[in-house]
């Protein structure tokens, strides 16, 4: 290893971006997981004036899509500038058209890809090579990195080699496994980059740029006579690439001392069995080969670095002549191909050249690691064993159990080869408790403060509220090649005591390991509160148990619920990785660095927490045998169906890896209604209802983002058999006279966001602090309220046809969207829930990728559910960019079925009865009563069709449900609607079909971490606009109004819930296209979302978010179609903005700029409101229609 001052502890995204930023002039970006961080960092560095190698700050521009980013870099390259971009997955696919162009024009260019799974039967944000493999035909050179160090080094090598070769480079590394792995690496300083990159080549590239001073023309259209020859004209350039890259690697070695080849072989010099592999998996094979070599095996690994142009000669030269069997591992799947891409290249190389080099090994191919599936030394050993067999499985899989086509390689699941001198620690934390941040900090402390190598990898939940994080930390004397999760840890910390009941936390503890618990129990009592399963393992593995009440320490030192500092101090105190005093000094130093600018008070509080920790940390004296009688509760309730028990519960328990292929649907089709089986119990406090104080407004039910508080009215007789603590009161109101009323919370599904209690207007007159809803500790209420909620669910649902279009009675409708994984206090989900209450039983949703597709469709459980008749929303996610088109297609299909059914009905009218047919065809279906009536007619129709075997009748029977009107909704966020999907949204608006588009406007790309979109307001800070956005929010509603024929509404449920409810109802009823823009508070706004409703009110009051509806039908009456539903602004924009960190942070960075931006935003708001007011007054002259 190098001297300490040349090392740094970072992840591959940062390492790569650092090189790319220093070697670029123009950077065009678009957020996509797992590459977003590269763009964010580049933007951050540029916004703080960090320069490239030549002293210029690179220009960073965020585009509307990856296609836009590719177009922008193509243009920048054509101007002779050095350009780069970062992307992954579908984003990379959007760049492919430009990639052909950039390559065809022989343009020096390097892009960096955090390789990620392509969406097929499902989306996956995790890593494999399916995206980069879809680019292997574009003409780009492709260089694969397998570690954080390589990602940095190969980034530099790619930038240098592309300048020399003129062939553009796609540099890639494994998404998450490498992009997000924090590791100690040797830094590439500016001098090294300068030595590597030849300025004369940059000048040559610049000279080729388009300029009217020496004009040329590129992008001609060519004909059959010449295109082919031109295509071949670049051959020499491709032929030269391998040697250019090899030469660059040799120069790199001279500069840095780190040697790389196009294909690097590692293993026995006379190996018989060799694995060929790319990416991070190569590191795991390398590590396993070393372990096998020490056991006398003749094995090796060939790491392919340069994949395109495939370096056949280097590949063959690198292989030992003794090799008898080659296994080529691909991290992708190409259904229907002879084999996966690397395999095919190896087979073809050997077939073409083996005679020259006298090599005729047997070659088999296999797939591993799709979507970041673990790839472990045990699997590597299994693959080697398979390769030794006389008739191995070809085209095998490893890491899964394929019990359908039986192509999986067997391996020893217990094998663990990690050496004792590598310290391994696993931490279970809650997203919000700071565990990951503390661990990243610990890695830096150890990596930068000792000669040890360090690695950190973090596993996150797909839930956005109450999410679990698992940190895997390794420290050791050698570079760490273990690109897989820790299975045997010497230190295990559980930062949330409740996890012990839900996860097998102790499973990964090695014998003799330390187990650190954050527990509210004293050291002499904690043992008896451990579940039996944990006690058994603690005894059997001879673990040492330490405990601390970290929340008490955090509370006492003013840290609130942030236990990161406390638990980090415990880790260093107990683990012994550093002398404790030294560790504490370093922790304090990093606290000072982190917080000193943000406030001396914060530094003091954190210091106090560190100092208070050790006195509260205790080792537990363990008994010799387990004593607990209580066991971990079942993962899902026993009432759940077979699929949920077999599949969902296994995934929930964290054992999804063990499920065989046969357990799964073959086409990505999953049952709905599974979120209810996942009782997460994440709320510290839940709402408790006081029936005597309640005014029965049902606003609590409306605002609840998780459908965890509900209202029902029911006949008094239904109360028979109610649990003792079930609450009920007389219903107040003229409808449902004499009935009972209940507000009931779902104690185990509530996230504790407090919105319901905050919105509750009912105060006890004698003691106004007490409201009809109060947040109280969940633990003692869990059991009784669980029973109460179960009883509540069994109460009959209200007759839908009795519900009026008002806020109160609509909330008696059953929500068919419940308990999603959205953030506590999410501002989007109340709209979706309301949508399902209103139209859920005839609703089809096309959902753009983003937050709403993640909380809407991320396994293991999903929130869309069914009513008692089995009806409920049908939901699908296509892509990010195509959602409007996707929804339109659904509408066209549904319309076709409906029209077909109506036609068939007319054809067989005499057979089923003319009267029934006339009733069905002429049915009114814009009221719940009308829908119910039509459903009854369809039942009658089906009865009449029974036994009728005529082809027409059979066909009609199959599609008769389409005679009941369906509501097609196109749902997505502002990233979709304003940016990447705007072209499609605009087109769908123009077409005018009966679809409804709901834009959940959080004013940023929420799912990928708050990057600015065109919906971001002027003056707010967002990623890619860290200094505050300087241009106003795009007025999507106004654009839509210009078509004149679309129903448009802008809503904010917290400001005017009736308007929101009515807008949804009108949009559904409107016989053309509707566009609803819904204000959605989001954690990216930077405030406690318990105040989300208050903020919505301020947003509307200040004119920041005027609400309105635009109904084209009104213009037929000579009225303005626009009705402004907001009063004139009555407060200033500052009153609203000052409550949100996204605005305040701009002020804190640059108060002068903030004042200017706020003044500009105030002008914008005032003028926009004036425009709406004018439009609302506009009277359109009545023009006679054709019939008049």
């Amino acid at each position, binding site marked *: 290893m190098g001297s300490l001052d040349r090392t740094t502890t970072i992840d591959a995204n940062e390492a790569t971006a650092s090189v790319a930023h220093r070697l670029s002039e123009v950077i065009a970006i678009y957020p996509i997981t797992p590459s977003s961080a590269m763009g964010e960092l580049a933007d951050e560095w540029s916004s703080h004036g960090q320069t490239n190698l030549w002293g210029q700050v690179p220009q960073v521009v965020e585009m509307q899509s990856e296609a836009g980013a590719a177009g922008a870099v193509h243009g920048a390259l054509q101007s002779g500038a050095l350009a780069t971009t970062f992307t992954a997955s579908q984003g990379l696919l959007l760049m492919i058209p430009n990639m052909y162009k950039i390559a065809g024009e022989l343009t020096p260019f390097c892009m960096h890809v955090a390789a990620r799974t392509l969406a097929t039967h499902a989306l996956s944000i995790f890593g494999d090579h399916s995206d980069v493999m879809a680019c292997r035909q574009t003409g780009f050179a492709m260089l694969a990195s397998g570690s954080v160090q390589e990602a940095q080094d190969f980034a530099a090598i790619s930038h240098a080699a592309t300048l020399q070769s003129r062939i553009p480079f796609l540099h890639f590394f494994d998404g998450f496994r490498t992009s997000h792995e924090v590791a100690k690496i040797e830094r590439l300083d500016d001098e090294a980059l300068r030595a590597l990159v030849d300025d004369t080549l940059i000048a040559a590239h610049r000279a080729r740029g388009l300029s009217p001073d020496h004009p040329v023309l590129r992008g001609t259209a060519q004909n059959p006579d010449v295109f082919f020859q031109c295509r071949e004209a670049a051959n020499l350039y491709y032929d030269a690439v391998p040697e250019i890259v090899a030469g660059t690697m040799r120069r790199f070695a001279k500069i840095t001392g780190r040697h790389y080849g196009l294909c690097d072989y590692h293993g026995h010099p006379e190996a018989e069995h060799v694995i060929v592999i790319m990416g991070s998996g190569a590191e795991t094979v390398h590590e396993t080969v070393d372990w096998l070599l020490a056991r006398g095996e003749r094995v090796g690994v060939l790491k392919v670095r340069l994949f395109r142009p495939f370096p056949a000669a280097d590949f063959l030269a690198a292989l030992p002549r003794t090799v008898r069997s080659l296994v080529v591992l691909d991290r992708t799947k190409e259904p229907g191909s002879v084999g996966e891409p690397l395999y095919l290249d190896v087979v073809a190389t050997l077939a073409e050249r083996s005679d020259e080099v006298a090599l005729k090994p047997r070659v088999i191919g296999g797939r591993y690691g799709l979507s970041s599936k673990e790839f472990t030394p045990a699997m590597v050993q299994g693959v080697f064993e398979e390769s030794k067999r006389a008739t191995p499985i070809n085209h095998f899989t490893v890491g899964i159990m394929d019990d359908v086509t039986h192509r999986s390689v067997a391996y020893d699941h217990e094998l663990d080869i990690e050496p004792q001198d590598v310290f391994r620690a696993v931490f279970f934390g809650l*997203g919000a408790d700071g565990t990951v941040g503390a661990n990243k900090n610990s890695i830096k402390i150890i990596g930068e403060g000792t000669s040890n190598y360090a690695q950190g990898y973090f596993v996150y939940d797909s839930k956005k509220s109450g999410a679990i994080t698992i940190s895997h930390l390794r420290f050791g004397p050698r570079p760490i090649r273990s690109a897989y999760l820790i299975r045997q840890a010497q230190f295990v910390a559980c930062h949330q005591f409740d996890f012990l009941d839900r996860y097998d936390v102790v499973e990964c503890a090695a014998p003799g390991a330390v187990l650190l618990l954050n527990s509210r129990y004293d050291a002499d009592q904690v043992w008896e509160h451990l579940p039996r399963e944990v006690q058994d393992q603690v005894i059997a593995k001879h673990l040492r148990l330490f405990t601390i009440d970290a929340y008490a320490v955090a509370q006492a030192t*003013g840290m609130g619920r*942030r236990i990161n500092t406390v638990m980090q101090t415990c880790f260093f105190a107990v683990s012994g990785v550093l002398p404790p005093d030294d560790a504490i000094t370093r922790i304090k130093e990093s606290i000072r660095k982190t917080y000193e600018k943000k406030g001396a008070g914060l530094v003091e509080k954190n210091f106090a927490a560190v100092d208070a920790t050790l006195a509260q940390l205790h080792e537990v004296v363990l008994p010799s045998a387990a004593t607990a009688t209580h066991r971990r509760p079942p993962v899902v309730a026993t009432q759940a169906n077979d699929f949920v028990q077999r599949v969902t519960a296994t995934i929930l328990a964290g054992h999804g890896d063990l499920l065989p292929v046969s357990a799964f649907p073959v086409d990505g089709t999953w049952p709905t209604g599974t979120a209810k089986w996942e009782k997460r119990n994440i709320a510290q406090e839940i709402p408790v209802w006081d029936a005597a104080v309640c005014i029965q407004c049902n606003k609590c039910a409306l605002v609840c983002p998780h459908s965890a508080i509900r209202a029902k009215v029911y006949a008094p007789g239904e109360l028979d058999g109610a649990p003792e603590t079930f609450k009920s009161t007389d219903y107040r109101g003229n409808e449902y006279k004499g009935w009972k009323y209940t507000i009931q919370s779902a104690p185990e599904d509530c996230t504790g966001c407090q919105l319901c209690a905050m919105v509750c207007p009912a105060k006890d007159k004698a003691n106004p602090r007490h409201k009809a809803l109060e947040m109280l500790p969940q633990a003692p209420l869990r059991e009784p309220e669980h029973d109460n909620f179960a009883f509540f669910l069994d109460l009959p649902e209200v007759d839908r046809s009795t519900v009026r279009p008002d806020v109160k009675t609509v909330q008696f409708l059953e929500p068919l969207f419940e308990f999603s994984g959205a953030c506590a206090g999410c501002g989007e989900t109340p709209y979706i829930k309301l949508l399902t209450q209103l139209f859920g039983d005839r609703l089809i949703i096309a959902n753009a990728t983003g937050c709403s597709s993640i909380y809407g469709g991320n396994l293991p459980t999903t929130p869309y559910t069914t009513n008692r008749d089995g009806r409920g929303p049908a939901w699908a996610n296509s892509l990010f960019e195509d959602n409007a088109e996707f929804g339109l297609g659904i509408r066209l299909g549904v319309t076709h079925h409906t029209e077909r059914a109506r036609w068939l009905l007319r054809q067989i009218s005499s057979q089923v009865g003319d009267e029934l047919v006339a009733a069905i065809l002429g049915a009114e279906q814009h009221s719940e009563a009308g829908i119910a009536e039509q459903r009854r007619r369809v039942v009658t129709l089906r009865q009449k069709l029974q036994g009728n075997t005529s082809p027409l009748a059979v066909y009609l029977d199959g599609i008769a449900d389409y005679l009941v009107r369906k509501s097609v909704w196109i749902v997505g966020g502002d990233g979709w609607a304003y940016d990447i999907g705007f072209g499609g949204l605009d087109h769908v608006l123009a077409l005018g079909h009966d679809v409804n588009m709901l834009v959940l406007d959080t004013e940023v790309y929420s*799912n990928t971490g708050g990057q600015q979109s065109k919906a971001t307001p002027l003056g707010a800070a*967002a990623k890619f606009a*860290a200094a505050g956005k300087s241009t106003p929010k795009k007025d999507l509603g106004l654009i839509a109004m210009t078509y004149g024929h679309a129903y448009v509404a802008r809503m904010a449920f917290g400001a005017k819930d009736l308007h929101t409810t009515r807008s949804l109802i009108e949009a559904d009823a409107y016989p053309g296209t509707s566009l609803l823009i819904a204000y959605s508070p989001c954690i990216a706004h930077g405030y406690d979302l318990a105040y989300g409703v208050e903020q919505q009110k301020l947003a509307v009051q200040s004119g920041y978010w005027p609400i309105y509806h635009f109904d084209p039908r009104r213009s037929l009456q000579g009225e303005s179609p626009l009705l402004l539903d907001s009063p004139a602004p009555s407060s200033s924009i500052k009153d609203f903005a000052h409550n949100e960190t996204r605005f305040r942070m701009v002020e*804190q960075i640059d108060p002068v700029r903030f004042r200017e931006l706020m003044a500009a935003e105030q002008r914008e708001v005032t003028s926009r409101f004036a425009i709406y007011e004018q439009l609302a007054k506009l009277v359109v002259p009545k023009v006679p229609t054709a019939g008049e």
Partner: protein
Amino acid sequence: MDLTTKYMGLELRHPFVSGASPLVDDMAMVRRLEDAGAAAVVMHSLFEEQILAEQQATIEALEASEDSFSEARSFLPDSQHFRIGPDQYLEQIRRLKDALSVPVIASLNGVTPSGWLRHAKLCESAGADGLELNVYYVGNQRTDTAEIVETRLLRMVGVLKEELHIPVAVKLSPFFTNFINVADALDAQGADALVVFNRFYQPDIDIDGLEVVPSLRLSDSSELLLRLRWLAALHGRVRASLACTGGVHTAQDAIKALMAGADSVQMVSALLSNGPEHLQRIRREVEEWLEQHEYSSLSQLRGSMSLDRCPDPAAFERANYLRVLQSWRG
């Protein structure tokens, strides 16, 4: 007419000062104050408690969502470049110093001993000519006795006087068991000025919404009387200079305050309702009054009606109170 005065060791052209308020946050208003000839400006208070709360809230908003979800490390831009603290206030001191030739007095309300000192020093190094301590609330425990509260205040002033080079004024409330005793003790600790009195934020009640709501009421001349009495009692008996704040709206009010013994007269409500130009008007009217009444200088008038010099000292004391009551009965 010589209107010069010396206040907390600072030479002022005349006694009329723009008191602690957000008036000087806005540079346009600052220019108007300067045009109106304010002899000094006092800035609104830097509230340590507010800074701490804002730091905590911002950090929670940022950190709660960091490193918890696979697709995003965080949900707001990197926060290392923004500061949550007194920076803006300090920047405003610098701006005022650049813009104005008259003294700029910073104002501070602390909650912790370290906070008082840290922020006081920051104000000093930002260029403030003086520091006004806004002693809004120094007792925060039910068990704090009068002695504890007073001792804490005195100790704090003592520490600040030791550590700072700029003069220190103490803005007080009248609610001490023996105000004169406290004033004397502060004087002994070296306070350069005593500012009487602080006006308190007094929340109102919304009887329909059943909520406590903030209210901002401007002062009027009736509030002056309390000040007059205590200024008169202090004048000539403490080394510290005296400022009257609260209730000066007219030239007559100002003359009374000066007669009672004020070295400077701070105005806020009057300027908020009549504009900064009101300060100039009062200065001119006072000057005219002095001329009409043939005073040779302001110093001839200052303290003329203090307890030591007024014709009927008893009238300032308890008898005064009794007489007022009797006249009511009559």
